[in-house]
């Protein structure tokens, strides 16, 4: 029996003009790991809500067709009954926890299912160990960070070991290390206990290698349902914005088939003779050593990637020895030194809790330093994580001046309610608010601006930020999204435990790492600082164009 089946399901939210789901038919078998892909507004979250029984029970609206979870028809059974068979994690982790302590939160679902206390205690212990949250068990849920809340909410969805797990962007608040760990924990759960996983994720490069199947949605309908390789081939033809960076690099370099992950990509490049075979220990280059360049053309290509932008003389922000300590707690920032020039594009990266958001709040004057100093050339505009927090009025035109709305292309929506705007429009409105005013800001700081965004929206944001930087405004953003960082920034600052541990050109910082690196850099082993798919493809094309034996061109060790 299928663990989940949709049969000709159409659904329209109350008062909506069109269908959120349109004639959706699909089945999910036990033990399948399925990724749900699609642009924003394509119906992915609605499909998950329908699988959880929230549509139509909770949201109302017009519903036709049928959804069955392990044989239970969602029209006849409440979300509470479906909840015994399907663990669900929705987008906002803050509303995903109910109880006051983590232990009680994990126990809730099991208690509701009528499990005996010993079974509850054991399941809570094991789930917390599996998800690495055992140290949080006795913490109050109100004290947890966004990333910790997300892990706790996920544990609460998994603790009863349901046959089906429905996850809506479970890694959106996690740093790359935790995000990767989580995907592989899900895969292990899926393999060891036959749990079917239906996962919505925008960063497909993070989860495609673990998936058995990918379903793509567009305008509420299923438009592709294939294995990951087949999906990438479909995406290349029909929806290029859903391609992973690795697949885009391969497509640009004329290589087939598109790789579903780093391992597959590297194997393909080795077959083509574009990557060296793993070196014997005595031949291995010293850690941190850059591969030697071969050929003038390759060298010229690589020099372009790592070239530093000319630094203007004027500093937009100067931070010296900044400390931020909290009462009865650890120091969040420990002697941070940072200088940002006018028009510079900087990304702050690091694990959850590294101090990125705190640093931005200091820059904007929302926090006062415990020690150290901070000076800026003018106003610092800060765009916080949730653009909706800026809206207090009934119409868009009340929130920002007409000129500022025109700059972000929202003039036509001036009479709309801010909360009726799409995610991208909300962010543009929030940008208009913080950038407005008489005094033009010297620096724009953004905290995780790409969370929950599809690639098209990210590109539009990058263009907007590039334009602002072109006007001389320094832009500093904190992000976990290495791909976006590579698209936008010229410089990366890596924070750990409140300290700056690396600061340099983006090609140097993101090419040399494993977690804080783009997929292109991981595939090419950081060769020549290529971070973006277009850069990687250019390198591959240059390497392939060389005459003679092509072995190990990227490593620069011809004829090893």
């Amino acid at each position: 029996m299928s663990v989940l089946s949709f049969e000709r399901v159409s659904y329209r939210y109350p008062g909506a003009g069109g269908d959120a789901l349109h004639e959706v038919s699909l089945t999910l078998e036990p033990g399948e790991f399925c990724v749900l892909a699609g642009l924003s507004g394509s119906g992915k979250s609605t499909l998950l809500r329908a699988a959880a029984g929230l549509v139509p029970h909770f949201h109302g609206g017009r519903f036709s067709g049928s959804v069955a979870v392990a044989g239970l028809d969602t029209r006849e059974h409440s979300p509470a009954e479906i909840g015994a068979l399907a663990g669900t994690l929705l987008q906002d982790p803050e509303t995903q926890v109910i109880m006051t302590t983590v232990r009680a939160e994990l126990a809730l679902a099991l208690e509701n299912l009528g499990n005996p206390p010993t079974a509850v205690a054991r399941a809570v212990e094991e789930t917390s160990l599996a998800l690495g949250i055992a140290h949080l068990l006795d913490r109050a849920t109100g004290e947890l960070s966004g990333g910790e809340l997300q892990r706790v909410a996920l544990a609460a969805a998994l603790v009863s070991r349901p046959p089906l797990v429905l996850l809506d962007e479970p890694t959106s608040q996690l740093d790359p290390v935790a995000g990767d760990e989580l995907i592989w924990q899900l895969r292990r759960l899926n393999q060891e206990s036959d749990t079917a996983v239906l996962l919505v994720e925008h960063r497909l490069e993070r989860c495609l290698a673990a998936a058995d199947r990918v379903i793509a949605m567009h305008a509420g309908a299923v438009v592709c349902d294939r294995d990951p390789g087949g999906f990438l081939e479909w995406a290349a033809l029909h929806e290029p914005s859903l391609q992973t960076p690795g697949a885009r690099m391969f497509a640009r370099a004329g290589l087939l088939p598109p790789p579903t992950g780093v391992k597959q990509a590297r194997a393909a490049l080795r077959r083509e003779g574009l990557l060296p075979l793993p070196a014997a220990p005595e031949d291995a280059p010293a850690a941190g050593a850059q591969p030697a360049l071969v050929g003038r053309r390759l060298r010229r290509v690589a020099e372009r990637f790592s070239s530093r932008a000319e630094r203007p003389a004027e500093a937009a922000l100067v931070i010296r020895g900044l400390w931020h300590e909290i009462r009865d707690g650890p120091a969040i920032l420990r002697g941070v030194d940072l200088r940002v020039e006018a028009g510079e594009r900087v990304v702050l990266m690091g694990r959850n809790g590294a101090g990125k958001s705190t640093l931005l709040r200091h820059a904007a004057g929302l926090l006062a330093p415990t020690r150290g100093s901070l000076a800026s050339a003018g106003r610092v505009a800060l765009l916080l994580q949730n653009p909706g927090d800026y809206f207090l009025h009934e119409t868009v035109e009340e929130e920002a001046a007409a000129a500022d709305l025109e700059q972000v292309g929202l003039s036509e929506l001036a009479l709309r309610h801010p909360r009726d705007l799409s995610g991208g429009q909300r962010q543009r409105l929030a940008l208009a608010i913080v950038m407005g005013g008489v005094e033009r800001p010297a620096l724009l700081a953004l905290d995780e601006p790409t969370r929950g965004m599809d690639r098209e929206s990210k590109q539009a944001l990058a263009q907007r930020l590039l334009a602002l930087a072109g006007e001389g405004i320094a832009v500093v953003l904190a992000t976990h999204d290495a791909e976006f960082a590579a698209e936008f920034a010229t410089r990366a600052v890596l924070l750990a435990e409140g300290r700056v541990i690396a600061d340099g050109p983006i090609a140097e910082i993101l090419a040399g790492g494993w977690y804080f690196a783009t997929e292109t850099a991981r595939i090419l082993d950081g060769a020549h600082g290529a971070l973006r798919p277009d850069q990687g493809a250019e390198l591959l094309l240059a390497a392939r164009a060389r005459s003679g034996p092509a072995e190990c061109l990227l490593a620069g060790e011809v004829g090893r």
Partner: protein
Amino acid sequence: MSAMSAAARIAYRRRPSPLHAARATVAATYGLALATAALIAASPLLLAALLCAVLGAATGAGVGRKLLRAAATTALPILVLSVLVNVAVNRGGLTVFARLGDWGVLGQMNLTVESLVYGLVFGLRLMVVTLACLLVVCAADPDELLFACRRISPHSALTAALTTRLIPVLAGDARRLAEAQRCRPDGGATGARGRLAILRATVGGALDRSLDVAAVLEMRGYGARRGGGGGRRARGRSRSHQQLRSRSRHDLAFAAAAVSIVALTICLEALGAAPFHAYPLVSITLTPWRLALAALLPAIALLPFTDRRGIQT
């Protein structure tokens, strides 16, 4: 907004104390017994003794500072308000300390010492009740209480669960909204106008937030009926959950203290051991044995805190 923030600040947190070591239902009963005694007592002597008992219990439970801060923000304004209202409205009492003349429809405004004292005593009672309730919030595990409540009334427990979760969520929303307003180029609206705007936006989003929380509660199986017997199973489970924690010496000590406090207060009031009259003239009789009897209340209330075996600080 500040009330929401205050509520979020005073939330339960497990601490090494005898009161926290007792069951949530016992801790709640103990706090409510102090509140009930305050409602029964008419004498300022007994109320002062109960105030000492509440503050002593809070200190013993490690939440003394928290409770004093809460007293300053919530209980003290109530006390001041009750005094002002009583002095302005009550015409009883013979000792006039201020003649404010004719106030039209309100008549002659003569402020008396008796109405002032009565207002103070009434405010003191409200203060003790408020602080005793806050002690329950600080020292009784709400999750454990919810499980206990669900056995009696599942729907009320669901509402309580929603409410308790919604308060910190909305407080977080308000905090974020306020921070975002500070990021506006003009610094956003300040003062009462700014607070009102944030409060309006927070309340406006409360329905959406409550729906989100309710959806999660339902998906976690809250209120599920399994073949018609799910409710019974859940109730059976709740009992076994309670049985997992057998009655401890702390449970017995605090339960005994709770019963004794209420019983002693009733006896003292019934026997007229602490006579007090506010009108027409203030009359209160203080003798050593009456003071000793009143001192029994904090002594009984604090006795369970002396057993700290196995509690590391």
